[in-house]
């Protein structure tokens, strides 16, 4: 019997080619989309699962003690681990990772010197590998016990030493004072898996930094560490979390007293200094903390959005499938009648149709898997992920899911047509009456409206994402970010860089050259300040060191006072504020803003030493971070100010404004860059040459949004295609249904154009309804998404109109083929049937 059903399904499919192709194509696209998104979501949700003890590993988070106590941060001071070891025996191991920023690493191998600026370079404690399961290819975890030793991944070892055995070889790393420190390679690791929230190329032993860690003052506020704990099996996590809350108040007070001259209570200002234990597997996708020093973080919003889209697209294509199958029933009415007369029970018919639809789903699934495999590479590039299908196919769980998926989808999308089709009375179907009494019309129209509502809503959302991206990149950020070339690693030259500056200034390609110790949009460093003779309250300001030329180069506008003046040597202890800082320090309010009010006032550091600096200028607010955020209060410090603690430390950069009359083409630009490279190499050949362009860096702050925009575009187009396939099928069906009616109208004198209008107006109505439903949904979603940004594109009405017009146009094009066919048919043919 089953064979008979399969045979029947096959021959029907062949006979009704148009329906079959529409059905399979639509369903395959839907399933492929769903699978692709499924792979993505699965991949995002299973980060860090490869660690053997993953279920027992927790990261210790604490409030952001520097800025916002309400925000959870992933970094702690070094002594959180010490305290946990002391007070919480529930931990089998507690280990630390230290972020030390980019490092210049040099090695000599086969008489060849290689120098790299290592970005993924951290310090790890010796028990790191007892907690995490990174695989050793050579050496052993004991390697991390000794100071000045390091392990590197295979890829990194290859980079420095080629095919040679790196064990026992040495590399030199430039330390904070510019002195080369020698480390010995004691282990080689397998490359870090892609799905790991920790991404490193090199790990040096944390014991190499024991001196700094011993400094009393730093123990609780040197928050460059991440602390991870491995709990013993069967630990009651709730009890443990409660228990460790008593640790900071017990251990941190000596630090706050020594450094800030404040009691613990004064320092926390009433905020609880909590310790939060976050399961390892949740770290990557966690909303809070949303950042850490040691690798990538996922975006839970994207996972939610795409998960929802995946399910929607699948639902859309299943609806199509049901719709088309049901519509097809008139063609099969006779078969159903004959089968009933010949003895088929209703159950047997239902079984037949469910089996038929399951076969369809099976074929579509198979096609979908091929589609996914074929488009995986493109998708990986666009979404910047590394998804894989084939290795997953070998896993029984995955296969089980696919089989289950086929069965569920087959039964679900086959059951409606099955029940519907098997309901007919045989006498009626044999007479062909069913066509005229087709009752599923309301349902089918409802499904089409549903599909188009979703598609139109997606189109609107996509348009707004693009609009927001265009808006943010065109925003006036307060200075001219185009045509600025930036050279990095200037701190490697040393503090005095006058020679380089003179060389750069002599080039006609640059209209302005300036040095700074931070670059927008990445000015993150800040400190605690207070206003003398203002509100005597400690506030957090961002700070950046620059020379006067850099401010000129940016073209920021002074609203009061003046820029630093190199001819006045006292200027090095003066500061410049932005408008926000003036307000925060309490010298002006939003309403009565008067920039001059702050000139001559005194700002004091509130981190232990109370050095005082006079304000000489106020600049108009400019975006020194991504335009995602509001502008933070900023204090600009003179580059030679040696009273602020970071004098002589930190990264520095030269920025050059390109002269467009000299640098006209890419070739010119490349030549300019090469010249700068030569200039630096003449000063010190060991300095890695790196450059960037400021406008690109600003674009990069929206890289995730651009990615999301791209992926959203693809899925929106897919959803539209699926909806159109459905509409096309429905139009074909309706054309068939109404062929007699249209024939009669034609005999009675209707023109082709009138018939076409009559026919398409039915679909136009559906689209109008969809537009009305989609508009509020899209508005709500867009409005919600835009709250992520400080600067929002207005939700303009015309975007909705454009989306509606697009939907209309697409609909009309889709149904026009059927419209014309139905309207221009010869009535003699259509009326002869009776």
């Amino acid at each position, binding site marked *: 019997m089953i064979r008979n059903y399969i045979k029947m399904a096959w021959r029907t499919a062949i006979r009704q080619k148009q329906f079959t192709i529409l059905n399979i194509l639509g369903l395959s696209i839907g399933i492929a989309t769903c699978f692709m998104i499924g792979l993505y979501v699965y991949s995002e949700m299973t980060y860090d699962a490869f660690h053997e003890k993953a279920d027992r590993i927790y990261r210790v988070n604490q409030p952001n003690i520097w800025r916002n106590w309400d925000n959870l941060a992933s970094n702690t001071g070094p002594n959180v681990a010490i305290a946990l070891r002391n007070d919480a025996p529930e931990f089998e191991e507690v280990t630390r990772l230290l972020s030390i920023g980019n490092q210049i690493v040099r090695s000599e191998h086969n008489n060849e010197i290689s120098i790299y600026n290592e970005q993924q370079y951290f310090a790890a404690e010796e028990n790191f590998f007892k907690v995490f399961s990174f695989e050793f290819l050579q050496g052993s975890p004991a390697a991390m016990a000794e100071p000045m030793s390091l392990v590197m991944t295979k890829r990194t070892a290859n980079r420095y030493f080629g095919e040679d055995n790196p064990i026992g070889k040495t590399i030199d790393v430039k330390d904070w004072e510019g002195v080369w420190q020698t480390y010995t390679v004691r282990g080689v690791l397998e490359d870090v898996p892609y799905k790991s929230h920790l991404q490193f190329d090199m790990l040096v032993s944390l014991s190499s930094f024991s001196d700094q860690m011993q400094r009393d003052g730093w123990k609780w506020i040197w928050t460059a560490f991440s602390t991870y704990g491995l709990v013993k099996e069967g630990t009651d996590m709730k009890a443990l979390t409660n228990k460790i809350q008593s640790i900071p108040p017990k251990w941190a007070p000596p630090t706050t007293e020594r450094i800030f001259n404040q009691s613990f209570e004064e320092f926390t200002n009433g905020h609880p200094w909590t310790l939060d234990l976050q399961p390892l597997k949740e770290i990557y996708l966690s909303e809070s903390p949303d950042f850490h020093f040691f690798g990538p973080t996922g975006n839970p919003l994207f996972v939610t959005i795409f998960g929802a889209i995946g399910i929607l697209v699948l639902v859309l294509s299943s609806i199509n499938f049901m719709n088309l199958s049901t519509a097809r029933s008139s063609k099969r009415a006779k*078969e159903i009648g004959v089968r009933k*007369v010949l003895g088929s*029970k209703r159950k047997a018919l239902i079984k037949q149709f469910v089996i038929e639809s399951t076969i369809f789903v099976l074929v579509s699934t198979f096609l979908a898997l091929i589609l996914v495999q074929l488009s995986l590479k493109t998708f990986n590039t666009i979404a910047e992920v590394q998804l894989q299908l084939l290795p997953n196919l070998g896993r029984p769980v995955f296969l089980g899911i696919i089989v289950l998926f086929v069965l569920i989808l087959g039964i679900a999308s086959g059951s409606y047509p099955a029940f519907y089709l098997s309901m007919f009375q045989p006498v009626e179907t044999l007479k062909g009456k069913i066509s005229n009494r087709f009752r599923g019309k309301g349902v089918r129209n409802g499904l089409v409206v549903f599909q188009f509502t979703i598609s139109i809503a997606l189109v609107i959302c996509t348009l707004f994402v693009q609009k927001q991206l265009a808006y943010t990149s065109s925003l006036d950020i307060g200075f001219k970010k185009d045509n600025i070339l930036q050279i990095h690693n200037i701190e490697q030259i040393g503090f005095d860089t006058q020679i380089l500056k003179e060389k750069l200034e002599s080039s006609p390609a640059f209209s302005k050259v300036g040095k700074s110790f931070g670059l927008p949009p990445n000015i993150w460093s800040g400190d605690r300040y207070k206003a003398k003779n203002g509100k005597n309250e400690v506030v957090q300001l961002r700070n950046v060191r620059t020379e006067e030329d850099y401010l000129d180069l940016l073209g920021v506008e002074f609203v009061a006072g003046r820029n630093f003046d190199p001819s006045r040597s006292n200027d090095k202890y003066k500061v410049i504020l932005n408008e926000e800082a003036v307000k925060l320090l309490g010298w002006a309010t939003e309403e009565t803003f008067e920039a001059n009010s702050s000139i001559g006032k005194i700002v004091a550091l509130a981190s232990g030493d109370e050095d005082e600096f006079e304000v000489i200028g106020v600049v108009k607010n400019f975006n020194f971070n991504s335009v995602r955020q509001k502008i933070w209060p900023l204090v600009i410090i003179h580059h030679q100010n040696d009273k602020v603690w970071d004098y002589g430390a930190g990264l520095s950069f030269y920025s050059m404004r390109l002269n467009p009359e000299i640098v006209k083409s890419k070739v010119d630009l490349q030549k300019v860059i090469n010249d700068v490279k030569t200039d630096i190499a003449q000063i010190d050949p060991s300095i890695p040459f790196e450059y960037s362009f400021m406008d690109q860096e600003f674009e990069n702050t929206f890289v995730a949004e651009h990615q999301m925009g791209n992926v959203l575009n693809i899925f929106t187009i897919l959803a539209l295609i699926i909806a159109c396939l459905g509409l096309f099928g429905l139009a074909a069906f309706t054309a068939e249904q109404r062929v007699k009616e249209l024939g009669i109208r034609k005999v009675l004198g209707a023109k082709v154009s009138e018939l076409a209008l009559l026919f398409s107006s039915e679909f136009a109505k559906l689209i109008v309804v969809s537009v009305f439903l989609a508009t509020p949904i899209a508005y709500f979603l867009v409005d919600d998404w835009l709250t992520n940004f400080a600067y929002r594109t207005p939700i303009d009405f015309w975007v909705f109109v454009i989306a509606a017009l697009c939907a209309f146009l697409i609909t009309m094009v889709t149904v026009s083929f059927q419209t014309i066919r139905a309207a221009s048919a010869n009535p003699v043919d259509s009326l002869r049937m009776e």
Partner: protein
Amino acid sequence: MLLQLNNISKWIQSGGQKVFLLKDIDLWVHEGDFISIMGPSGSGKTTLLNVIGMLDDFNQGEYTFLDQSVHTLKEKHRSNLYKQYIGFVFQSYHLIDELTVKENLEMPLLYKKHGGSERKALVADMLDRFNIVGKKDLFPSQLSGGQQQLVGIARALIANPKLILADEPTGNLNSKQGEEIMEIFKELNNEGVTIIQVTHSEKNTSYGSRIINLLDGEVV
């Protein structure tokens, strides 16, 4: 006695009035009868045939088939009854276009759960009997109307029914094909199969033993 209709009436409500499709029909059919139902268009011939074939309901009266009162039976039992004892032949053949001749013949057996080898034997018998062995792998669209109706009859017969109901079996055929089909009905009747046919043609009635004339739903 194969079946008996007593006072059968069927009507529809139209504008608050009863419109009779069948009115007070009495009919006795004995095994071995060959009955022709005649009448003009709209006289209720097909409705009567459908009522006899239990494909259609009636509003009033009694229907006894092989000593079972059909009007008291539930839908499910009724359909079991007709599936077991009645074969249908249609004016437009109603073969399934997607199945070959052989598969079309096999289908009723599938629903009656006959085993594979038994099905094969029965299908082979039928093909033999109607001389269509050579056509067994062709699809309906590849056959002439007469040949299609031959398959239709073979399919009606394959489950060995006691009664064949034929609704204008020659209506779509030319006169020569029509004659052949009627000859076959005659032969079947001689072999003991009861036949009730609806027909327009006087000539076809001559093959049967009794004629029932209908007009506006009543026997005249």
